[in-house]
């Protein structure tokens, strides 16, 4: 579901299935056109949201049930704020380091763990809150 709200905001609720990622791509295309966002920024927004959402889908739920993930975008004068909310297990990505060594030789490079590393490099601010049974991640990206 895509909902355009007043005051430069978009929100989208998806199910915890990888096929839902294409809905995120569509919303980012719509808001990029609306907010006159560059192709580079569009690419960064896609990466940031995909890395978090795929992480939630892969690791947040111990049951096989359907869950909702809420993604909200808001534009301020010089930045875009993205808030992602899920009801999966407690996971503070700020404290997660994943041991990615970007200087390691190919033989020593571990497969995986790169998503959160990339995400942290692409945003300007990250905030994590556990609110009841919800993980709420807020990201700020300067334009």
């Amino acid at each position, binding site marked *: 579901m895509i909902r355009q709200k007043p005051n430069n905001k978009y929100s989208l609720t998806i199910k915890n299935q990888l096929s839902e990622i294409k809905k995120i791509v569509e919303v980012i295309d719509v808001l990029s056109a609306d907010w006159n966002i560059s192709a*580079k920024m569009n690419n960064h927004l896609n990466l940031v949201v995909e890395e978090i959402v795929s992480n939630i889908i892969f690791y947040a739920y111990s049951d096989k049930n359907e869950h909702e993930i809420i993604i909200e975008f808001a534009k301020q004068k010089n930045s875009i704020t993205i808030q992602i909310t899920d009801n999966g297990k407690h996971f503070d990505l700020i404290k997660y380091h994943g041991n990615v060594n*970007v200087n390691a030789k*190919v*033989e020593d490079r571990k497969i995986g763990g*790169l998503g959160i590393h*990339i995400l942290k490099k692409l945003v300007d601010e990250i905030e994590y809150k556990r609110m009841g049974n919800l993980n709420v991640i807020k990201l700020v990206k300067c334009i």
Partner: protein
Amino acid sequence: MEIVTKKDNSFTVFEIKGRLDTTNYLDLEKEFTRQIDNGDRQILVDCDRLDYVSSSGLRVFLIALKELKKLGGKFVMCNLQNSIQEIFEISGFISIFDVYQTKDEARKVFNN
């Protein structure tokens, strides 16, 4: 994403087009595995029309590189768009992969 594979002398060219992400990375992983299992040891990935890669896609490139290195083969990439180049730099992939600006430069790496 669309994957086109072509035999070019002693190496196999993978042209990957569109968007490589968490919804389709396994398709590419299977295609690399299939070609390597068939005996291919020299792979050139042409990224001219690859628009987007997330960490799932990077993971597939790393698996293929490690596998070919172990088997004494070569895994070479060319024509990275700026957005992909940026992700390769952020993740440190730029220093572990053989990346060339053009296909002509890249093909010189292979033994014919």
